[in-house]
């Protein structure tokens, strides 16, 4: 015999939460799709009207402009994709050096806020407040101006061994007339200096907050055991502070990488600057901007993954 089982009929009632949820989602997706279709249609029409072709094939064509500096020389006859690569190299160069300098200076400033000397504390606070409250663009323009005036003239450069400092930047060459083995332009120097000093102020705050977040009982236990202030800081407080500092520190590294895009304002050929030139020459705004955004998204992702990995490695072992 069949057992009597009640049939459960699906009720498509507006009162059901599941139904409403589905309706909302479908509505949202439909709206987005409509918007995208509208925008894409307009774009295609406008580009056709202006005679701009679309497609990424322009990357293989010769660029037609030179790039002043980079890990390797770039001639006008080389392809656009190589230009973007040079730009990426420039971005990475300034970002990596900036990260190292900013971390070093920022950590010192952050720890300095806990010094017993009121002068040192005041100086670190003043630095942080000053550099955090002025826009980065303005700081970069000022450093560019100061370097342009302060660097020694070409005919009387400053020398330290093989290093030469002049209005051409910092170069490493055997004699004044020889080809420099490597050269850092004044634009690079201004950008890296400005980025490092600016980001160091933010890193100082992150370090300070991390140290302050370590429970007071830890320093008390260290003191009760007879450890000196230095020993307690090095062996008990800082290792624990490091774990608290890593996520916001990652954020600052990402900010520095993104801020390097301001290079376009002082003429340093980073990837955004190259994309700007490419857009002006080919009119392919969509493609170039997609390339730039994709590059930055990859950089962000890579940095986040690296820091998450480091975070996992140093995490406190719990049950």
């Amino acid at each position, binding site marked *: 015999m069949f057992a009597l089982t009640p049939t459960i009929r699906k009720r498509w009632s507006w009162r059901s939460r599941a139904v409403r*949820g589905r309706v*909302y*989602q479908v509505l*949202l*997706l439909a709206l*987005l799709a409509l918007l995208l279709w509208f*925008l894409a249609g*307009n*774009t295609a*029409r*406008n*580009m056709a*009207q202006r005679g701009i072709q679309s497609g990424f094939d322009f990357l293989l064509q010769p660029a037609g402009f030179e790039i002043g500096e980079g890990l390797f020389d770039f001639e006008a006859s080389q392809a656009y994709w190589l230009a973007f690569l040079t730009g990426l190299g420039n971005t990475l160069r300034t970002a990596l050096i900036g990260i190292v300098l900013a971390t070093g200076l920022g950590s010192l400033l952050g720890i300095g806020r806990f*010094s*017993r*000397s*009121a*002068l*040192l504390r005041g*100086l670190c606070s003043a630095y942080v*407040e*000053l550099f*955090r*409250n*002025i*826009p*980065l*663009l*303005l700081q970069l*323009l*000022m450093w560019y*101006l*100061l370097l342009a005036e302060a660097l020694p003239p070409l005919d009387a450069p400053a020398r330290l061994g093989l290093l030469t400092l002049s209005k051409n930047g910092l170069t490493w060459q055997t004699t004044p007339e020889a080809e420099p083995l490597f050269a850092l332009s004044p634009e690079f120097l201004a950008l890296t200096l400005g980025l490092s000093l600016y980001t160091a102020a933010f890193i100082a705050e992150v370090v300070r907050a991390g140290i302050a977040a370590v429970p007071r009982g830890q320093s008390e236990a260290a003191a009760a055991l007879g450890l000196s202030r230095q020993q307690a800081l090095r062996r008990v407080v800082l290792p624990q502070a490091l774990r608290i500092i890593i996520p916001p520190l990652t954020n600052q590294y990402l900010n520095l990488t*993104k*801020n390097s*895009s*301001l290079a*376009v*304002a002082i003429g340093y050929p980073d990837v*955004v600057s190259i*994309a*700007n030139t490419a*857009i002006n020459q080919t009119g392919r*705004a*969509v493609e170039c*901007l997609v390339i*730039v*955004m994709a590059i*930055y*998204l990859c950089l*962000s*992702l890579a940095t986040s993954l690296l820091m998450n990995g480091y975070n996992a490695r140093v995490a406190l072992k719990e049950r």
Partner: protein
Amino acid sequence: MTAQRFAPIPPRPAPARPVGAWVWLRSRLFCDRGTALTSLFIGALLLYGLPQLLDWAILRANWRPSVEACLADRAGACWGVIAEKYRIILMGRYPFDEQWRPLLATGLMVALLIVSCIRLFWQRWLVLLWLGVLATVFLLMHGQVLGLSPVDTDQWGGLPLTLLLSSLSIALAFPLALLVALGRRSALPAIRAVCTVYVELVRGVPLISVLFMASFLFPLFMPQGFSIDVLLRVLTGITLFAAAYMAEVIRGGLQAIPRGQIEAAAALGLSWWQTQRRIVLPQALAAVLPGLMNNFIAIFKDTSLVTIVSLYELTGALSLALNSDADWRPFKLEGYLFVALIYFVFCFAMSRYSLWVEKQLNRGRVR
């Protein structure tokens, strides 16, 4: 061991602490050898550097707007460049005769910001006030009503433009950020995915690329025949950018609300929207107010980037004022310092206010 006789001791005030300049200095600068050495070193640096700075900036500076006087004495700062060019720096390319309008607009906006900071005014009608003042400022600057002559948006510049862009983009970004933050925590997968993609996409790219997108792509997005104002384009770009960051801050606050609050609201029969409006959001927003202030300060500084897409706000107006005039160009540094001072005053005030708000909020939590 016998029990002692007990006599209650009433509390006494603390003994007066030793005062005097030497004691104050000793406790702050010379507590031990290491500290003393540090203090002396920094003291020496300051004694070397500060007099030179004061000499350049104040004692030997030239205050009169005369190129000859400034060129004659290069050992001092030339603040005359400010006296000469301050109207272009502060107002941009706005027509000279009509500059009372951006001045009034600036005053209104600063007053609006100050009023928003005072707790007394945190009422429902504050939202209407914001909309009202911003609309008035817009009309004032644009003209074409009440007999005011029309002024195109690409002639707006300087401090009013900075304030307008910041306030307007924050005002527009806030509701969007709220929706996106709530959407990211939604149980509906499509809504959550869309919000997450938006936030991660926007936070992963620099503001410049968003501004370039606004500048180059938005005209392409418009149907044929429509042209969109450069100011509106830039405003949209900054708003979308700001909303992503604010959404993350708000989401942090939402996550900090214990689940028990939502369960209690559900037990009382409140709907999802009612719970969010009356229980979750008031607590979450109060908790993240300092974080939102940081966002505002960041947006205020980021408006300087619109220089790169040819809107001459404060930083750009400076280049405008000095690049075209070869006489005053050697004194660009003084111009930069003046603009930096303006930014510093605004941003420092906002960050102090944010610290004060944080203290106020924590006072309610300490027993």
